[in-house]
């Protein structure tokens, strides 16, 4: 226990215990401060948090990070391999200004594989905060600047292009919006449903608890993947994209809330009989007050951990379904959807860079797992008391 006031000096029964050397007003660290202090100690989870943060920034400001409009089709540059950003030209001359060469292709006379070559004459300097296509930041602030780009006439596809000649990096950034938002939204629904049912089950108990727990068991026994596939395939693609987004998220939330409901119920059960809950009832606190002020906050650490473990699950499931063509449909794009081109061995063998979205999925999944690891330890700073 932290040494407060005169823990060692004798307390007088009837006189006020004053801390002689303390400042005039003591205020302890808030919950968030305590969590942050403990979280900071875990370097792996800091890295995880940064990974998520970077992905989130790339997704939210995807237009800023794409030099060319990711939805612009350019049939002249289909399946361009990633372009190298160079500092040294063909004569071995170094310049601080990076540049790219225009690429052109010919076919290998033996295998008829396309072979990409640099055109040394067509050299375009890379510029930063360059003017480009117009877009709206966060959907309402119009702007036309981009983080990087090249001089007029050139291209810079740092991760290559897809089969319609669209910049893959820009597409991936944009797809991150759906992939991340969908998993967050699904996790949010899962938390909402799981918390409500978990609290009700644990707090009121009795036959209601029995009923809800049997229901949870039934839901848990349903094989998730076939269910998702079946439900996703019946969503009409003609519907409003946003509606499809919400429905997809709900489909994923449909099965995963059970884990959370169990966790919350267990925590509520263990805290329900503690003295401070009894004390709250003794004061005349209403059920909502007991639940929201005294009971539910104690389950939050578990909720956060379950959340960070469920998000990667949803990201993977969504990628899987979209890859099969059962999930997200154009005009919405997700990481899994972007990889659909790679479902033929031929295309994949010739254009391996179209697997790049997989790297982003790996980063996202690892990031959330690392983050969850640190949050689990940090989220309950009062446990030491």
């Amino acid at each position, binding site marked *: *226990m*932290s040494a*407060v*006031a005169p*823990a060692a000096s004798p*307390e*007088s*029964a*009837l*006189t*006020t*215990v*004053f*801390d002689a050397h*303390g400042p*005039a*007003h*003591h*205020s*302890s660290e808030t*919950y968030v401060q305590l969590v942050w202090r403990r979280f900071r100690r875990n370097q792996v989870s800091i890295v995880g948090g940064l990974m998520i943060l970077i992905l989130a920034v790339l997704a939210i400001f995807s237009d800023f990070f794409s030099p060319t409009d990711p939805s612009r089709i350019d049939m002249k540059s289909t399946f361009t391999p990633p372009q190298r950003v160079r500092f040294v030209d063909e004569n071995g001359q170094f310049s601080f200004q990076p540049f790219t060469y225009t690429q052109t292709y010919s076919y290998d006379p033996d295998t008829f594989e396309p072979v990409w070559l640099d055109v040394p004459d067509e050299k375009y300097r890379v510029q930063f905060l360059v003017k480009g296509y117009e877009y709206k930041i966060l959907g309402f602030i119009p702007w036309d600047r981009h983080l990087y780009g090249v001089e007029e006439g050139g291209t810079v596809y740092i991760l290559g292009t897809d089969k319609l000649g669209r910049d893959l990096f820009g597409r991936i950034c944009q797809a991150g919006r759906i992939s991340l938002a969908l998993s967050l939204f699904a996790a949010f629904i899962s938390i909402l449903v799981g918390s409500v049912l978990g609290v009700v089950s644990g707090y009121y108990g009795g036959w209601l608890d029995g009923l809800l727990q049997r229901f949870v068991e039934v839901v848990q026994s349903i094989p998730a993947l076939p269910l998702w596939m079946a439900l996703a395939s019946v969503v009409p693609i003609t519907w409003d994209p946003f509606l499809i987004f919400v429905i997809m998220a709900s489909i994923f939330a449909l099965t995963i809330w059970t884990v959370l409901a169990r966790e919350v119920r267990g925590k509520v059960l263990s805290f329900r009989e*503690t*003295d*401070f809950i*009894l*004390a*709250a*009832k*003794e*004061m*005349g*606190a*209403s059920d909502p*007050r007991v639940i929201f*002020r*005294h009971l539910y*906050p*104690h389950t939050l650490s578990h909720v956060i951990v379950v959340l960070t473990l469920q998000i990667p699950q949803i990201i993977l499931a969504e990628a899987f379904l979209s890859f099969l063509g059962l999930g997200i449909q154009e005009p919405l794009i997700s990481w899994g959807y972007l990889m659909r081109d790679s479902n033929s061995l031929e295309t994949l063998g010739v254009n391996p860079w179209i697997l790049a979205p997989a790297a982003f999925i790996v980063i996202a999944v690892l990031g959330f797992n690392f983050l969850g690891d640190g949050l689990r330890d940090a989220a309950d700073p*009062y446990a*030491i*008391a």
Partner: protein
Amino acid sequence: MPSPKHAMPVSARPSSPAGGDDVILEIRDLKQYFPIRTGLLQRVTGHVKAVDGVDFQLQSQEALGLVGESGCGKTTAGRTILRLYDATDGEIWYTCPDGEKVDLAQLSDKEMKPYRRELRMIFQDPFSSLNPRLTVMDIIGEPLVIHKVARGKEMTERVAELMEEVGLNPNYMGRYPHEFSGGQRQRIGLARTLSLNPRVIIADEPVSALDVSVQAQVLNLLEELTDRLGLTLIFIAHDLSVVEHVCDRIAVMYLGQIVEIDNADALLRRPAHPYTEALVSAVPAADPDIRMQRIILEGDVPNPANPPSGCVFHPRCRYAEDICKEERPALEDLGEGHLCRCHFAKELGLQGIA
């Protein structure tokens, strides 16, 4: 502070309880049975009779001690009186400040709420009875918020006042419970209990979780506050020497029943029940020259789900005779408010402290 309204209709009011004018609380035949459920279908196969017919009267501003071994039902009795558990049977007559009597056992939770301001509890464990996520200010101020007495700055002022009253530095109101020692935490609990100016306090072993060196301080504080604020106290404890220090009268409980009630001093000097005698003999005397005969009770407390026939104490009683196995003795008046539940209360000359 406005006094709560007592115009609440009371559904059942058989007969106005008897007793002196100054009775603030009268408990009649209070029972609290907990069902035992077994098997897949959770069928009720029996009852734990935690409180099995408790009667007593509490005079205004007196301090009544409720003593007994662990598991004798004293804590359950306290909680049932405050309606933290719904009584299986019995009446809890509370006299409001305007003289009206209300049977708390008949009230719904909603109807009970205004009375929660006047009847409060101090919890045994200062570590588990304070929500670790709330600051001291939120903990002490919570009753004020729940009963809409004070908010914001007004609440802060009241909390500061209460903290000073219980001997805590009000500057610490932004701190969390884990930053305090056990004694300080119990003071926080006490401040919370006092925050609504209660009339009756049920203190459930308020010092048994504390270090012996701190016990006396908290006890003195409790005594000083109850005297100064004119509070009525039910003091639940298992330690007779602690109860003797605080209380005017003592009720001894055994297996869910009160076996003896008397004034604190008289009970210790002239116990009439063999169980009380055994308890009294265990009180350490301050004088090393005094040699008392320690009475060691044989066996364990019987299972409250299956209490012995007749007098519940007879299997462990040194003086038990055949009648004790068959007939359950009544709580008999031995004069001057001395009540005892024993067939031979008048015949046995039992040993008290000198």
